Structures are given as structure tokens and as C-alpha cells.
């Protein structure tokens, strides 16, 4: 935020709307999101919910900024609190001149949680909504009216936003909400906050073409565009949106999505569909992935292309289902019995989710094996404004699928033929002349089970060669910060946005850092190793207690003594200022 004259001009704003689940917190957040979007702000939207159907404390957290940001900010500027708990939770993070719009239906706000400079509007929203408008839900539009006045937005503009939000509702409902909004304006008037009287003024910029989408939706979309036509999954937080999105969309495109009876069935359903030549995917979170391990080993051994998505949440075991973590790195990279090649891609935002889902779907077919997409709860479920995806630029690569004509021409067909690139021609069932045996047992080129030692070695080597074949095309990482700095910062997934902004803050504080978000986690690319080798030390930012990413890098020859883990495992994402502060503290101490 910058100040011009007497007004504070808002260019970067964090909002929290919180109350009991079912309060409609998201409605106010939606209205503010539409308002900010129209003003050309980029958005980052997160939810903080309890693991229950309804009720429990729920919050919508939103950041609007004229510069695109990949995370929430450190401080909250505007807190719309529908109950005392919202003040208790959001208050400590309120900026020094932050504003609280509090539903005082049950009494005044508890000030002990708030900074001294905070401005508090205590309005009995719920009582007013019920008394004057006869419906509790209208308190959202009422609160939005006060918030719009505080942001220095004209009443007409606020009314346009409301009209757009409720355009799909019955006219009388839209009219009642408009009445509620105006009641909010009237209340603001009574508090000396007339139109244009706010000390704040919301800035604006030219809004370019953007979409607002979550990582899970972007991932499912990418899979679809890459030709994915089969999905099986079992409901689990935070992966369930992938199932529901594909259940809605795949049938429209001739595909099939179904809810399996468990994760064992989910991965084996995907295996079956993949066997028949259809691009297949399953998605889950840590506990489900643990159940899928045998199937993943089967993909590696039997050479079956399936995309496996892990939307990580806090573990171990059932852990904290709605909270983010990055503690499945070991399981994803090393899980499953035996040795087999696999690829692990790690998207850091919705754009990555779309692009890497396309890449994973192609890669699975090209190398005939398991390709993981490793997300975390924040990447999966937070919604971010990003440039529209390039759906026209997607190319479908079929790999070594052979046709009946190919087979007739070659006269002989071996499913597991040993080839220089390790990849064997693949005849899918239904192809005349291509009958073959697929098995997870060690087998000879014909697919017949074999324990013959020389064959075993040749087959293992063939499978492992496939990784070398695809390695040159594996997605490189994203770089940010100061490229020639001797200090580095490295992390995957939800760390991308936080690290990028922290790097700016560190540079401003006199500690420039070079940043890398590896998008291919396994195999570890030379790019990643080189990034560390060229630096004196690299901060590895991760959400787990064991420094799993640090250990993974060290296991492939990255000098361990140059890696400095920066860990958090309390279920809350890093914030940019906080991360910069922790690194600064380390740097000053050296």
C-alpha cells in the first residue's frame, strides 16, 4: 500500500471473511473478488475449513494485487468477521491500520486480539438482516455494502458487482440483496463513512484476459485436453474436486469417470483402461496413495501408462485432512516394491497444473509407466488468476502404439521387445495380430513369465533405460530472484509464490537470492543439481518435519552441506514476509 495525499491507495490487499461454516462467508468473498477483478487486480483465494460437512469455523482468505502474487500476504487489511472466533483467529494477523467489520448481533468485538490502530465497525448484520429483510443470508450483501464504502468504491460500482453476482437468481432475491446492500450503505453513512469519505482508495489497472481457477480444476482440464478419457478415484480431501470435475466433464467428451469402492479399485480400474489404450488417471491424497502402492509398482513392472495424482495433505496417517503438507515426497519417489522407473512432476500453480497434466498424460504414453503429479492442498484447492490456458497449443503424443498394418508388415510382435530406447512397441487389445501377455512378473520379450537371470537383467535394464530416453524432455524448473546470487532458495509446489515474493523482499533487504522451483522432482534434473552446485548455500523450503526434499537432493549427489532446510509442518503455508524474515535471520547470523 502506498499513500497519496490523505488517502491510502490500495494496490495489494488481503481480506479475510470468516464465520461459522454455512454463514455464507464465501459469498462476501465472491463479491469482493468480482469487485477486485473488475479493477484489474490479480487474485489469490484460499479457504480455511474444518474437516466436517457444515459448521465449524470457516474462512475465505483472499489477496488482490495489481502485481500477480502466488500466495496470501502476511497481514490482513480487511477482516469481515461474522463471529467472535473470526476476530480471535484473524485479529492477530491484522495490519496495524486494518479494518474489522464485525457482526455485533451477539455483542461487541473482543479488542484484545486487535492491533491498537485497527478500526472496528460493529454492526448487528444478522439482526438487521433478519429484522428488516427477514433472512439471515442477506447479511452478506449488507456487509459487502460497508466493505465497499471502506474500500472507497462508489455505490454504483458496488451495485453493479452485486447485480453480476446475483444475475442468475430470481429477480426478487436479487432485489432483496440490493436492499441489503443499501442498508449497508446507510449504516456506513451513520458511522461517518459516506460515499467517498473513506481514508482508503482502491486503485485500478487495465484488466487483461484472466481466468480464476484452482489447481485441481486446472489439472483435470489439462488431462482432458491431453486426451484423457478415463478417470477412477475414491473421494479424499484434498483431491475430490478432480473426481467431481471429471465426473461432470468426461462423459461430455465420450469418456468415463467413476467413483471406485476404494483406492485399490481406483488404480486397478485405471490400469484396466490404460491396458485398453485409453489415457487414464487416478488421483488421491497420502492415505489413498499408500493403498495404491502395489498398483504403482505394477505400472512400473508391467509397463502400463497411468497418471497418478497425489494432492498432499498433512500426515502421517489420516493427519490433518484439510491442511497442506509436502510429506509424501519419499513415498512418491521411492514407494512401491522393487526397482522401476517413474516420473514425478510437481506443479506450483494452476498454470503448471494444466501444463504438467498435459505433459504427464503424454509422458505416461511415451514411456509406458507411472507418471506422478505431486501437488499439495494449497496448490490443489486455492484459486488463482492466471492467463487463460493455451488449449489450442496442446499436442497429443501417442508413443509407440502399433496398428494392425504395422503388425502385419513386421510379421512378428513381442510386447516386451528389448529396444535401444527401452520402450517396446505396444499393441492394445482389439488390434488384430497383436495378441500379447501383460504381467507384473518378470517375463521374456513375449510376455511369458521368466526367472532366467540373463533375461532378468536385460529386462530390468530395458525398463530403466526408458528414463534416459525421456529425460531430455522433462519439464525444467522456474527461475526467479537474482540469477547470479551466491545464495539460493529452492522449493516445490505451494512454495513457488511465497518464494518468489520472499526473493523480492530479500533483495530489497540487501540479500539477493536466486530461486528455483523444480517442476520435475524425479528424476532429479541436472539443472537442479547444478543450481545448488553453483551456490554457496541454498535454502530448501519445505512443509514437512524430516526435510524430505533436502534428503532427496542429497541422495543424488547434491552437496548436503550447502542445503539449509527451512521447515514448517503446522498446517499453515509460509507467508512471504515470514519466509524472508527466517532467511534473513539465518543470513545475518552467518
Amino acid at each position, binding site marked *: 500500500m502506498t499513500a497519496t495525499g490523505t488517502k491510502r491507495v490500495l494496490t495489494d490487499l488481503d481480506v479475510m471473511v470468516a464465520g461459522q461454516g454455512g454463514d455464507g462467508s464465501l459469498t462476501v468473498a465472491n463479491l469482493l473478488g*468480482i469487485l477486485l477483478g473488475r479493477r484489474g487486480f490479480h*487474485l489469490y483465494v484460499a479457504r480455511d475449513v474444518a474437516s466436517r460437512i457444515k459448521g465449524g469455523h470457516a474462512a475465505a482468505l483472499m489477496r488482490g494485487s495489481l502485481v500477480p502474487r502466488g500466495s496470501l500476504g502476511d497481514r490482513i487489511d480487511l477482516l469481515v468477521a461474522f463471529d467472535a472466533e473470526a476476530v480471535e483467529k484473524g485479529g492477530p494477523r491484522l495490519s496495524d491500520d486494518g479494518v474489522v467489520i464485525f457482526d455485533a448481533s451477539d455483542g461487541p468485538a473482543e479488542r484484545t486480539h486487535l492491533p491498537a490502530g485497527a478500526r472496528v465497525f460493529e454492526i448487528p448484520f444478522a439482526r438487521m438482516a433478519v429484522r428488516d429483510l427477514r433472512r439471515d443470508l442477506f447479511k452478506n450483501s449488507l456487509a459487502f455494502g460497508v466493505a465497499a464504502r471502506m474500500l472507497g468504491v462508489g455505490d454504483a460500482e458496488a451495485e453493479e458487482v452485486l447485480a453480476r453476482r446475483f444475475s442468475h437468481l430470481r429477480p426478487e432475491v436479487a432485489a432483496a440483496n440490493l436492499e441489503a446492500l443499501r442498508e449497508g450503505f446507510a449504516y456506513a453513512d451513520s458511522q461517518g463513512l459516506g460515499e467517498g469519505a473513506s481514508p482508503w482508495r482502491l486503485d485500478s489497472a487495465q484488466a487483461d*484476459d*484472466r*481466468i*480464476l481457477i484452482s489447481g485441481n480444476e486446472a489439472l483435470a*482440464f489439462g488431462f482432458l*485436453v491431453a*486426451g484423457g*478419457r*478415463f478417470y477412477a478415484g475414491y473421494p479424499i480431501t484434498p483431491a475430490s474436486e478432480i473426481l467431481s470435475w471429471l465426473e461432470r*466433464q468426461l462423459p*461430455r*467428451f465420450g*469418456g*468415463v469417470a*467413476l467413483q471406485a*469402492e*476404494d483406492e*485399490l*479399485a481406483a488404480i*486397478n*480400474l*485405471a*490400469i*484396466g*483402461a490404460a*491396458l*485398453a*489404450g*485409453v*489415457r487414464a488417471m487416478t488421483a488421491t491424497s497420502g492415505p489413498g496413495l499408500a493403498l495404491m502402492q502395489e498398483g504403482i509398482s*505394477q505400472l512400473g513392472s508391467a509397463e502400463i501408462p497411468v497418471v497418478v495424482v497425489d494432492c498432499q495433505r498433512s500426515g502421517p496417517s489420516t493427519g490433518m485432512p484439510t491442511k497442506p503438507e509436502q510429506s509424501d515426497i519419499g513415498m512418491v519417489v521411492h514407494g512401491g516394491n522393487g526397482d522401476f522407473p517413474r516420473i514425478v512432476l510437481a506443479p506450483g500453480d494452476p498454470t503448471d497444473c494444466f501444463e504438467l497434466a498435459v505433459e504427464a498424460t503424454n509422458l505416461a504414453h511415451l514411456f509406458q509407466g507411472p507418471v506422478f503429479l505431486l501437488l499439495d492442498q494449497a496448490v490443489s484447492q486455492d484459486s488463482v488468476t492466471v492467463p487463460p*490456458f493455451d*488449449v*489450442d497449443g*496442446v*499436442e*497429443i503424443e501417442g508413443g509407440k502404439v502399433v496398428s494392425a498394418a504395422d*503388425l502385419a508388415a513386421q*510379421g*512378428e*510382435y513381442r*510386447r516386451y521387445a528389448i529396444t535401444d530406447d527401452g520402450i517396446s512397441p505396444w499393441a*492394445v*487389445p*482389439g488390434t*488384430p*495380430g*497383436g*495378441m*500379447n*501377455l*501383460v*504381467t*507384473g*512378473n518378470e517375463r521374456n520379450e*513375449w*510376455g511369458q*513369465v521368466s526367472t532366467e537371470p540373463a533375461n532378468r537383467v536385460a529386462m530390468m535394464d530395458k525398463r530403466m533405460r526408458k528414463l534416459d530416453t525421456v529425460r531430455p524432455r522433462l519439464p525444467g524448473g522456474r527461475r526467479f530472484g537474482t540469477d547470479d546470487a551466491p545464495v539460493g532458495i529452492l522449493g516445490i509446489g505451494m512454495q513457488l509464490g511465497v518464494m518468489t515474493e520472499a526473493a523480492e523482499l530479500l533483495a530489497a533487504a540487501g540479500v539477493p537470492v536466486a530461486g528455483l522451483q523444480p517442476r520435475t522432482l524425479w528424476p532429479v534434473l541436472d539443472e537442479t543439481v547444478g543450481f545448488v552446485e553453483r551456490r554457496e548455500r541454498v535454502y530448501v523450503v519445505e512443509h514437512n518435519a524430516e526435510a524430505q526434499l533436502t534428503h532427496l537432493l542429497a541422495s543424488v549427489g547434491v552437496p548436503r552441506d550447502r542445503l539449509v532446510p527451512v521447515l514448517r509442518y503446522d498446517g499453515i503455508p509460509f507467508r512471504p514476509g515470514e519466509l524472508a524474515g527466517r532467511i534473513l535471520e539465518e543470513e545475518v547470523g552467518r
Partner: protein
Amino acid sequence: MTVTYTPARPIWCAGCGHFGVQGAMAHAFAALDIPPHEIVVLAGIGCSGTVQNNLGTYGYHALHGRVLPTAAGVHLANPRLTVVAAGGDGDGYAIGMGHLVHAFRRDLPFVYVVMNNGVYGLTKGQDSPTRHGLSGIGGFDAIDLGLSIPASGFLARGFSRHPDQLRRLMTDAVRYAREGRGFAFVEVLSPCVTYNDTYASWEHLVEDVDTRQGYDPSDRAAAFAVTTGLAAEGRIATGQILLDADRLPREETVPAAVDVDPAANAAAYRDLLDRYRV
């Protein structure tokens, strides 16, 4: 003619019931004149889990207990294929039991053949869930389970020692599934001559319901009364126990035949993208 793998010779002991099962499968494919490239035989883990190697069709060796979801995946991806899942009672009724209920419930048109011998042969003689159940004392009856699920439409039990009956049941099952009518379940009493040789004892316990006066396989309640009644006498019902002959084939999409070219779908993809524009 492209040369592919040579069908293997069975690994089973001389006299194993599974020979009869394999023979019945081969008979059904020939009788219905299905080209081998249109058939996928999937088998689980165990002695029975090698039958897919012996038939010259497309074959898949499933994970232990997971043949049903895998077969369902193959079918859903390409309903034009004839899909036959096979396995033993350990594979199907122990580690894979959870999937059987859902296979009945989903009623997807493929065949599931369980070679039931009451024992784990490949791992050398451990008890299976049906070891003490086939004579009706305790244990578990998969046909009764199937009868209890309203979606089921084809339930049959054969005996390896009665090849004519088994061939008929297997052919009917493959035809039923191939016509898209639903899930066809065939349990075969298939004795293990090494660890649980029950040829002689079962011979005296089986009763072919198809030879019963007035037996109506479309009457689910009557079928249940007959199977449980026989079980109470320590006997085992065989034959076409349930058949919903009026069931019509269902229309299914064929993902394997869908045009996934991005250019062909570009307008629909762009429309989807528009929903996210702010």
C-alpha cells in the same frame, strides 16, 4: 499372420480341475466364433492365475485380488472387447472379496470365472475362505451373495468333472456379457488334486438345478430358496442358478474409439475455459 507369443502349456498338476475350466473357455470362444484379438482374459494370482497364458488371446496377469476392477476398467475403456476375468477362491473370496460385491452392483458386462477348490494351491495348501463351506457347513457361498444383490442377472455354478454342463454355462456366460446384458458370474468347483482332492466328495453333493422339475432361474427368491435349501442338506447347487433373460443390452460409450484430437474438440475446450474467465 503376425507371429506373437506361443500359448503356454498349463502349469497345473495332472488332474487339476482348472484344465476343465480352460477347456470350457476355449470352447466358448470357438463356439461363439470370437476372434482372439477381440478377447481379453485377465487372471489373478494363484494356480488359476495362469489361464490367460494358455489361450492365444490378449492376456493380463492382475494383482492379487484386483482382477475385477482391472477387468471393469478394460470393459469401460472398450466395451467392444470380450472381457473374461478369472481367478481362484483365494484371489476372489479372500484378498479380493470387497470388489465382488461392487462387480455385482455395477453389473458391467464381463465374465468372472472363479475356480473354487477351497485351498491355496500355489502357496502349498493353506485354507481358503471356502475350505469348510462348500458342503454347506459354515464358510461362504458366492452365488448366495450374488442372489442378494438386485443388480445381478447371471449366476451359474459348474463342476470341472461335468464338462458338458461347464461348457454350456461358460458359453452362455460369454454370450450374455458379449451381448452387453450384464455381469456374468460363473463359479466352478475345480478340485485341487494335490491339497484338497474333492472330486469324489463333490460328485455326491452337487445337484444340477437345471434338471429340477419347474426350476425357474428368473425367480430370484425361488433360486435363493433352492440354493440355501440344498446347502442345509449339505449339498451344492450347480447349473444356471439365476438368469434374467429379459435384460436388454445397454448403450455404452467407447472411450477407446473417441477422437481426442485437440483440434476436433477445440470449440468445446474453449467454451469450458470461458467459464473460468473473470
